[in-house]
């Protein structure tokens, strides 16, 4: 059925079967493979995307449920300027602070970081970040550098004037 979605700023009508999950539309339908499928049981957070500014698990929402909504994936965060791609401050912080090893969980972690900034602001303490990561699993890092990266990314977003749109 026809479903209108704004994905990373581009609004289009997509013809999708009702049983298609958002994550499957993104990956298989649109080639946006940055959104990962980890557990497929709403636990690991690798499929996190922003829907109207709020982080949701794309494996546990049907594309048709989001008719009219705005979806931001990891591919929509970096900006193109003068031919070169500039990472979003939260992405740059993960690179700077080695907040990843294999990288599989990283897109979901970055989105989770943006969700934290939306609700808690730019000055995130370690306890808040650790608690807020309860829906995101990483099997490599031990989380230490992820927490550091999110704290730094949140601060960098304040400096660059980045907001998370509701």
């Amino acid at each position, binding site marked *: *059925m026809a479903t209108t979605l704004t994905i990373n700023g581009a609004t289009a009508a997509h013809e999708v*079967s*009702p*049983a298609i*999950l958002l994550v499957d539309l993104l990956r298989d339908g649109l080639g946006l493979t940055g959104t990962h499928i980890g557990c*497929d*049981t*709403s*636990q690991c*957070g690798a499929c*996190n995307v922003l*829907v109207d500014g*709020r*982080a*949701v*698990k794309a494996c*546990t*929402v*049907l594309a*048709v*449920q989001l*008719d009219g909504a705005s979806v931001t994936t990891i591919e929509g965060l970096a900006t193109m300027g003068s031919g070169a791609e500039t990472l979003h401050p939260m992405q740059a912080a993960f690179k700077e602070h080695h907040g990843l090893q294999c990288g599989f969980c990283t897109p979901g972690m970055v989105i*989770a970081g943006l*969700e*934290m900034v939306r*609700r808690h602001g730019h000055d995130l303490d370690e306890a808040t970040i650790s608690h*807020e990561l*309860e*829906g*995101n699993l990483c099997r490599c890092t031990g989380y230490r550098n992820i927490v550091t990266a999110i704290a730094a990314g949140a601060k960098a977003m304040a400096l660059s004037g980045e907001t998370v749109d509701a």
Partner: protein
Amino acid sequence: MREFAYERPSSLDAAVAAFAAGDTGGGGAALIAGGHTLLPAMKSRLRQPDTLVDLAGVPGLTGIARDGDTLWIGAMTTHATVAADPTVAAAIPGLAALALLIGDPQVRNRGTIGGVLANNDPSADYPAALLALGGTVETNLGRHDADDYFQGMFATALADGEIIVRVGFTVPTASAYAKFRHPASRYAVVGVYVAQTTDGVRVAVTGAGPGVVRWAEAEAALTASFTPEAATGLVLGGDLNTDIHASAEYRAHLAGTMLARAVAAA
């Protein structure tokens, strides 16, 4: 997931009609709110409805308001909204704290109070709050008193296709919820909601048995003395769950511990 038809009605009457017309192949119709229980069940084919009727387009199912001694929460209100709402925090802080213990931030952004109460998972959190606080489940057909609403595992007083519109909680003098979370699923291994009301102390337990229950012995002990010490030594009786996570004996003891924590927090 098996294929199904999807309807997104824009009124309560249209939703009722869509549900009634939705049993096209013997699989029945299903109402979907946040979908965070229903969609996983459909992925594993525990549920295979012919038609999904999405309540997201029905107006009037969200919002929070206090009317006298009742806090009303619209059925489609998400856990994240309940957790962050100043009206909830002022009226029943224990309920706001409970909402923050459901799932994780992403789940709370989609899951709804009406969905939880319609599903009545034996380990869900809101049933304990509604039963302990006392209140009302208001639907398209009428009202159900909290004391009559819960009828065992995944069973409620709702008729097939009856749609929850809003949920009313009686504002207590004091209340709190204590939950021993399963670390992976976030469901309650045991959760205890304690409420001090004008009608006395009410205690409800979730996660321990086949459905949420009042705990009469705990209510009597806390009526005599509303202190954590009064909970000391209390062990939950009745038909309790044994599974790979905890034995019935463990859950019986855990209920007493959660009871003491809830009283201390209230």
